[in-house]
């Protein structure tokens, strides 16, 4: 026998199911009025410093179908690479957004400011990125990924450097389609499968 560790095990995840919107974004789900407004409507307030951008995309299942029922959360630093609880962080950036695939087209849109590069624990800079968490019916544990940007220098990013199969790096990089506009598609399974993170 040995001493007993006092540590606990994380509660098991379960799928958010088809009605995750009822709990997380009820007004979007057709239940207005329970709360004054849905949580996470925007990661920025007026006056946020930095370039305002929109990122649009779709999330495809393993058959290539653009899912209509996925919900996303994003978390990001401000224009200077500081997270909201850090010294000097932009008070107009709360960093958090909830958004969902459109029920007819499957397309999602995130409007935010482009984050700055973030310093890692070892002092190495992480290229500008937005963390994304995806839940939906059929996803048994939420999927983490990151959005990087085509027009930033991603060459020294420590996370991207860890991706052995170099073509897969592209799955984490939003393509610039116009000034301030990016496209980021997510593929859950199969050809072009997005890199998901255990982080």
């Amino acid at each position, binding site marked *: 026998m040995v001493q007993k560790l006092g540590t606990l095990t994380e509660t098991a995840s379960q799928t958010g199911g088809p009605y995750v919107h009822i709990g997380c974004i009820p007004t979007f789900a057709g239940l207005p009025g329970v709360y004054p407004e849905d*949580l996470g409507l925007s990661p920025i307030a007026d006056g946020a410093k930095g370039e305002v951008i929109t990122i649009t995309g779709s999330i495809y299942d393993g058959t290539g179908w653009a899912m209509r029922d996925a919900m996303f959360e994003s978390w990001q630093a401000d224009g200077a690479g500081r997270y909201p609880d850090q010294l000097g962080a932009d008070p107009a950036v709360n960093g958090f957004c909830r958004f969902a695939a459109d029920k007819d087209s499957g397309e999602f849109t995130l409007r935010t400011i482009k984050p700055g590069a973030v310093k890692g624990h070892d002092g190495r800079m992480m290229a500008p990125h937005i963390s994304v968490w995806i839940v939906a019916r059929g996803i048994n*544990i939420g999927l983490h990924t990151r959005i990087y940007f085509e027009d930033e220098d991603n060459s020294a990013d420590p996370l991207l450097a860890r991706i052995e199969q170099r073509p897969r790096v592209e799955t984490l990089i939003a393509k610039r389609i116009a000034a301030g506009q990016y496209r980021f598609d997510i593929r859950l399974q199969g050809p072009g499968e997005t890199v998901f993170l255990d982080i």
Partner: protein
Amino acid sequence: MTDTGRLIPRRRDMHPVPYDPEYKTSLTRSPNLPLLSLESTPSEETGPRFGHGLIGALDNNLILNFSKGAAPAIGERIRLHGRVVDENARPVPHTLVEVWQANAGGRYRHVKDTYFAPLDPNFGGCGRTLTDENGYYEFLTIRPGAYPWPNRGNDWRPMHIHVSVFGHSFGQRLITQTYFEGDPLIARCPIAATVKDRGQLDQLVAPLDMAASRPMDYLAYRFDIVLRGRRQTMFENKPEGM
């Protein structure tokens, strides 16, 4: 409740399998390729915080929050309560807990839910609260009904409440479901069965908690939630290998 340090890596074997033939939708919605495993960074160790100003007086009362207190929802009155702690058994205070559920007949208030159990005009089906300084939370609601769903020929979801918890860092984000002690449908549910570790599945089943129930008013069920913890060490701030 130190909020520094790397997140303890997730034990994926303690979570549901992403791909489970008995849960058909998971077959096309699970990655084929391995996840990229990395140590957490500030991007995962920080996370959104929500203040008490967010929470309205009826937000954690699903019996009254849809009608704004005008008329109670139909169903068996229950209190769902518990604590949010981390893997180091430390309470997670002031964190947002959100719930959603079907009504007493097993119907969600959602355009996509076409089950013919009736809607309750006084039940919306969502609630939220912040844990207190000890990580404690509670909801007053009605016991959700079981409901059929299209999967195998005759699948029914056990009574359940969906629960979403933030913790203090984006890497702790968790959505799960709480089941109710004694429900024979749990053992027949392919979604519950995506959790292969028996002990972990048991932890999703809330026991009847008579001591926390109120005579002539409601029964109570206890549901404690464990979020990822952080590694606690003084050796952390040294260059690797030193």
